[in-house]
């Protein structure tokens, strides 16, 4: 019988409204108790034969969950593989991720989904649930074998960064997935308006002569998706919301009970399109970094819960792919290992969110999107726990990434707040040295 006691940390468990110094007792991979310390600070008497982790000064919270992570295997092993991607997830404090379907071939059939699970088991890092493609080969034409993908373990459906542009196809997909109570994770973007775009359309794009992607490209598709969710009763989750108007549309839809949720990335919360005057391909992402008014609206949406999840939108890309001209460089940021630090800088340090609110968007929020019962420290739940040193200062060195890729715009920048230990199934799977 393996017993682990995480002693004296600041336990933050948003699902149970806990934010107090407490001891977390874990046995056989399950949470047994969370005991809030009395005023005198005395710890619980520990059972014999227990491994104790001293968490004083640390935040102890449920393991993070990411609703869509691009693991790139099979097909793009030069960027990432399941083992490296899940190791990066652990280093970022993630204990559960949903693997994006954008492999080659695409995860549009049961055996492809089962391969993802098999590779994740072999890697033995974090939990991995596959996302299945909405349409065959993510071409947006015919529905993928959604029922069989569910049997293969798919927790949701997504064509990754390829929007399901045909409204009729999207309508059928929402109707069909409703039968399995699975969400569609959609990248809302009107392809005709975003095609060839390199950055946010606005003053900076005008100045730099770079082709812009207007905010309206996302807003229009967000509006369509909400209308179709209302029509069909299906569940739609909007990935990587980046604009002010999209946040407002989601807020209004939620207010009248439409089943729509949404997430946002840390880089869209910290950076604006001003950085593009470096012409640095590391800043190129999709959707593009927006202007300050959009960033303000995203933070407000995160604060009031309109955006219930934060995603790293992990897009690992081999360095040579980024060392080319800006217009041909693929978009994307290798984000798992810097997520927490960037969130602290964007949200905690300026006082926009409390730690409890931030952790909720990384745990119960994404768990609800995927229909998982993870993301809490409730007694009896799986012992997936992340320990954070909230005051540790560190500098991003991509050469130390667990990910196979190095494409970060935060290279060499200093941050405060770091994941120090990640526990999955009651087992310490990651620890800073």
């Amino acid at each position, binding site marked *: 019988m393996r017993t682990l006691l995480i002693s004296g940390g600041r336990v933050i468990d948003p699902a149970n409204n806990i934010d107090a110094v407490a001891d977390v007792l874990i046995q056989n991979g399950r949470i047994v108790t969370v005991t809030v310390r009395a005023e005198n600070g005395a710890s619980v008497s520990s059972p014999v034969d227990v491994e104790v982790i001293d968490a004083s000064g640390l935040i102890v919270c449920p393991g993070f969950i990411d609703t869509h992570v691009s693991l790139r295997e099979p097909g793009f092993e030069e960027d990432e593989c399941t083992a490296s991607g899940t190791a990066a997830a652990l280093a970022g404090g993630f204990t559960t991720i949903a693997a994006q379907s954008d492999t080659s071939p695409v995860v549009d059939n049961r055996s492809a989904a089962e391969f993802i699970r098999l590779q994740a088991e072999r890697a033995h890092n974090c939990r991995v649930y596959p996302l299945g493609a909405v349409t065959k080969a993510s071409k947006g034409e015919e529905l993928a074998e959604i029922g069989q993908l569910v049997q293969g373990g798919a927790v949701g459906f997504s064509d990754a960064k390829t929007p399901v542009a045909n409204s009729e196809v999207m309508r059928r997909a929402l109707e069909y997935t409703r039968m399995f109570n699975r969400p569609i994770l959609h990248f809302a973007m009107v392809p005709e308006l975003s095609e060839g775009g390199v950055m946010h359309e606005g003053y900076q794009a005008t100045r730099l*002569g770079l082709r812009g992607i207007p905010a309206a490209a996302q807003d229009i598709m967000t509006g369509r998706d909400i209308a179709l969710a209302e029509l069909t009763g299906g569940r739609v989750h909007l990935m990587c919301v980046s604009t002010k108007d999209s946040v407002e549309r989601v807020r209004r839809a939620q207010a009248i009970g439409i089943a729509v949720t949404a997430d946002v990335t840390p880089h869209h919360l910290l950076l604006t399109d001003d950085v593009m005057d470096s012409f640095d391909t590391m800043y190129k992402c999709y959707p593009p970094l927006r202007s300050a008014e959009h960033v303000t609206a995203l933070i407000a949406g995160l604060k009031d819960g309109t955006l219930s999840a934060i995603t790293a939108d992990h897009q690992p890309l081999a360095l*040579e792919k980024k060392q080319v001209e*800006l*217009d041909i460089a693929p978009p994307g940021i290798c984000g798992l290992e810097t997520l927490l630090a960037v969130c602290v800088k964007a949200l905690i340090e300026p006082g926009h969110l409390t730690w409890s609110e931030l952790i909720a968007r990384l745990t119960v929020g994404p768990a609800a999107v995927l229909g998982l019962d993870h993301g809490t420290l409730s007694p009896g739940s799986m012992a997936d726990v992340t320990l954070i040193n909230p005051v540790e200062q560190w500098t991003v060195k991509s050469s130390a990434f667990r990910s196979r890729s190095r494409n970060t715009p935060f290279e060499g920048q200093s941050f405060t707040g770091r994941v120090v230990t990640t526990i999955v199934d009651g087992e310490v799977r990651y620890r800073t040295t």
Partner: protein
Amino acid sequence: MELNEIPLSGLWGERHLLGLEGLSAEQLTTVLDLTEHYDQATRGGTQRLDVLKGLVVANLFFENSTRTRTSFSLAARRLGADTVDFTASSSSLSKGETFIDTALTIEAMGVDMVVCRHSTPGAPHLLARHLKASVLNAGDGTHEHPTQGLLDIYTIRKARGRISGLTVAMVGDIRHSRVARSNIHGLVTLGARVIVCGPATLIPSDISRMGVEVAYNLDDILPEVDCVNLLRVQFERQRGAFFPSIAEYANLFGMNGQRIRKAKSDLLVLAPGPINRGVELTPDVADGPHSVILNQVTNGLLVRMACLTLLTQERRRLQGGQS
């Protein structure tokens, strides 16, 4: 004054010339003054100077441009430099070699200055970060074309004796024009009033934040302007139709003999070329008394000599050598 004697009193201090944005009025004036010096000293002659003697200037053209490349080559050779031309018809990626690798390879052959033309905005900026050589932007996509901006401004200054207080209209495809951006930065910094005029689909959002006025009716603004710069309709840069037809464009924004009568009698007509006769302007205007189009070409050579000289002097200053 001796030809090789450079009357350099003005401020410069730039190792690269990537754009006119951010250059001060004083720096711009330094270039224009040196251009004027070369203009007067050479008096249309073809004497070789030795300002750049012993240096190698590489023309890296990743986009076709016979005119600009020829002008840069001549300018460099007129100053005594050796030149090498590297032309890749399309992106370097088609050969499996990255753009930076190509530039590093050329530099390794012993190059002091790189003149770069590329279809991607920021490509010369990328080179400036990776190379030891001085980088001169000869046009990066739809971003900037600083020597074209300078030669336009020099042409105006030579004709009018000043820039400050003049009203200059940039007409046509502003969205896809690097010439427009460089002109706007330079002219606004030097105190001109700049109006951009063209089809609304070709005038990008927020352009007014660059310090210009926006107009859609050429006839309305024509009486107020001192110079019009007729941008070439960039058929190759347009995805989809930005205006209904060439005929409609010519009708609304083309400069013809009829329309030019509404302008001031001393209006200057500039065009960066190559011109589409019958589209942006009719032959009677292109070859008429208002036109300074061929002066622009001549001045282009002089401006490029001035830029190459200033970059070389800064380079020598940084290396601690003789000036």
